[in-house]
């Protein structure tokens, strides 16, 4: 193609690219994206901790008909700060019926309905009824909602242990023997490396195994945030009728190249800012939190294979999805219209997300391998497998497939872009698109100044 040997091609494409970058850096949306990642990261860490701390102590009551449960199990069930047991008298001290209530007595229907009221009013989180013979009758647990099962689970386990103890004691075993029977076993995990040497599996190694998941996630968000920018921008320029003005100065291909480059530069700026923040946080964690000696987080996240894979697959993945989205943008007049066309793209894109954990568990397994060879998934899956890592031939073949797909998509996008951006109105049919793809590229008149041939 003669266009690519033309010096002006690069000049104009780079002017377009520069304008895109500068304009994007000026938008609020860009800075929101820059900030959103750290904010999300910080919130994701702090909110669960905060919620846990902010949670109120939950009160529960026990109606014990067994006579032994409260002394043995009841004391262990309290978890300061999370669950606190109060006796039904304490609870109903202000109630007019309090005098009638006696704890640790066979439950009366009055007592239970008072407790039910307390649960309904939210004064009490839950209560347990321990029947005379828990082994045959079971425990009864009444709570406002059944989503928090930690309390009842512990009650069940402790009751079971107590019942076992009572059985064994009844069989004549002394307490020491019974305690000794409660054994637990430690597991010493080790890994064998390529040379066959056995090593203790360090925490660092575990972190290293799982780190690609974080990278895949970041890659996914980055590629989509940036490719989406290109789509929005194309539709915006089309609907604001800017494209036709531009097209008298630049060719559609120069415009497309400039846009893809300019948005890529925007994206790299964005991702670098996230990266810097991410590494900053990791470094900070290293300073503030005493980590185990065998866990060097910084070494894990700065692993050259991971960083290299991320950079390469960001560029390749971006090019593929940029071409796809810009093609979609060129035939749509509004974002709303584009959403319809994007739905299938997004559905396909959920696959690497769903496969993220299984692939991390078995980076060289059949699922991981098969998905690597599907070009739309290659960037994510190969990043995911980096802990494996895949064999060199796999890198080579998947990359070749991906690059071929990118070339094909860019070619198709360029052809659709060329025609689509000049067109407004309802969307072209599939038949039109195929016709555009088959239309020849290049001027009909290929002539020197001297002889303009009439065709």
């Amino acid at each position, binding site marked *: 193609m003669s266009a690519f040997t033309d010096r*002006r091609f690069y000049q104009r494409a780079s*002017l377009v690219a520069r304008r895109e970058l500068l304009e994007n850096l*000026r938008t609020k949306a860009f800075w929101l994206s820059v900030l959103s990642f750290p904010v999300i990261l910080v919130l994701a860490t702090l909110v669960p901790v905060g919620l846990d701390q902010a949670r109120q102590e939950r009160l529960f009551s026990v109606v014990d008909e067994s006579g032994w449960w409260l002394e043995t199990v009841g004391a262990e069930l309290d978890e300061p700060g999370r669950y606190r047991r109060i006796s039904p008298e304490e609870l109903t001290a202000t109630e007019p019926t309090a005098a009638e209530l006696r704890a640790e007595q066979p439950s009366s229907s009055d007592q239970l309905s008072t407790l039910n009221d307390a649960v309904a009013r939210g004064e009490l989180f839950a209560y347990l009824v321990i029947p005379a013979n828990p082994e045959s009758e079971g425990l009864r647990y009444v709570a406002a909602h059944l989503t928090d099962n930690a309390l009842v689970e512990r009650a069940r386990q402790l009751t079971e242990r107590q019942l076992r103890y009572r059985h064994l004691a009844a069989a004549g075993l002394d307490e020491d023997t019974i305690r000794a029977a409660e054994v637990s076993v430690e597991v010493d995990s080790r890994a064998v490396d390529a040379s066959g040497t056995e090593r203790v599996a360090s925490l660092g190694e575990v972190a290293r195994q799982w780190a690609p998941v974080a990278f895949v996630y970041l890659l996914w968000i980055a590629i989509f945030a940036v490719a989406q920018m290109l789509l929005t921008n194309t539709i915006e320029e089309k609907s604001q009728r800017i494209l036709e003005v531009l097209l008298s100065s630049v060719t559609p291909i120069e415009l497309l190249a400039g846009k893809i480059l300019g948005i890529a530069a925007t994206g790299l700026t964005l991702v670098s800012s996230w990266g810097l923040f991410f590494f900053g946080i990791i470094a900070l964690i290293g300073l503030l939190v005493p980590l185990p000696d065998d866990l060097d987080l910084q070494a894990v996240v700065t692993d050259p294979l991971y960083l290299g894979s991320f950079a390469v697959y960001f560029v390749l993945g971006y090019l593929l999805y940029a071409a796809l989205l810009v093609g979609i943008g060129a035939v749509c007049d509004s974002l709303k219209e584009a959403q319809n066309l994007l739905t299938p793209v997004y559905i396909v894109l959920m696959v690497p997300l769903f496969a993220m954990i299984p692939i991390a568990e078995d980076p060289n397994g059949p699922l991981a391998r098969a998905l690597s060879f599907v070009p739309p998934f290659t960037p994510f899956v190969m990043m995911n497998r980096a802990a494996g890592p895949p064999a060199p031939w796999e890198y080579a073949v998947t990359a070749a497939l991906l690059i071929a797909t990118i070339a094909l998509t860019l070619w198709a996008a360029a052809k659709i872009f060329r025609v689509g951006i000049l067109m*407004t*109105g309802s969307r072209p049919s599939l038949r039109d698109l195929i016709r555009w793809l088959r239309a020849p590229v*290049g001027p009909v008149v290929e002539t020197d100044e001297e002889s303009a041939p009439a065709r």
Partner: protein
Amino acid sequence: MSNSSSPLALELSTVTKRFGDRTAVDQLSLEVPAGVIWGFLGPNGSGKTTTLRMILGLLWPDEGWLKVLGQRPEAARDRLGYLPEERGIYQRMRVLELLVYFARLKGLSSAEAKSRAGELLERFGLADRAKARCSSLSKGLGQKLQVLATLIHRPRLVLLDEPFSGLDPVHRDVMREAIQEAKDQGATVLFSTHLMEQAEELCDGLVLLRDGQKVLDGTLAEVRGGGQRDIHLAYEPIADVPVPDLRSLPGVERVRDTGYRAEIGVAEEGVAQEILSALVGRVRVRRFEVREPSLHEIYVRAVGTDSQAISEASSETATDLQVGGDESASPATQERTSP
């Protein structure tokens, strides 16, 4: 006939462009000399925008060839200035920045672009808005800015698609000045319009299209047809005298009689006197005027419909056509214009 030193700014030879089954431009041949203002007339859908897009190298003809400033269209790109009918500007950019950007796309150096932009803003009274965002400009100022962006690189050929549409009278004058100024600097200006008055006032020559075909072209004098004249007649009948059939008078080519008022087309001025004497005594002549035919009349004659009706119809359908992208590059116009 065609080499790089050709004095022709534009040369089209049997250019044909089809979109699917529809032929948008049909065997169009055209020569526009350098240094003139040329009108590009025709009702909407007659192939004007398609032709302009081919001149810009955005579309390629299916048949025939074009030479723009003596070169193939893509090679001439930097020396063209184009103002499309549908025009927008980057709202977030600043006024000066926008002009510099367009100038640089046309190959001007950064320093040159800046100095020319400053100069233009000064001359067109926008200097105080140089740092303002484009979004803050009024509609009229925005359009002024677009014209400046079209002309900043001093194009040799300026293509304006309906430059007067949507302009208020003040900005029409600005546009007219800008067109005249481009011509004074030696540029060739080709503009499409369906407003005959604008064309008549500005053009040195014109080409008229209908259904993708050329109906007539040439200098204004040529299209006015040499000796052709129109007689504007107003009369009243005389009691008991039968009104003569105007068509039967000597030398009359066509008559548009609206009842006691008529436009009579004659091949040459000389017959006017004969007609007048033939009328005297048979009707009471209240007005008798011999004129060169107006572009409006030429248009009507050539297109066969009243241009006023056409421009009304086209302004009515303009939105539809934009939505349907009538002359856009779509091969599927038929399907897409249906609701």
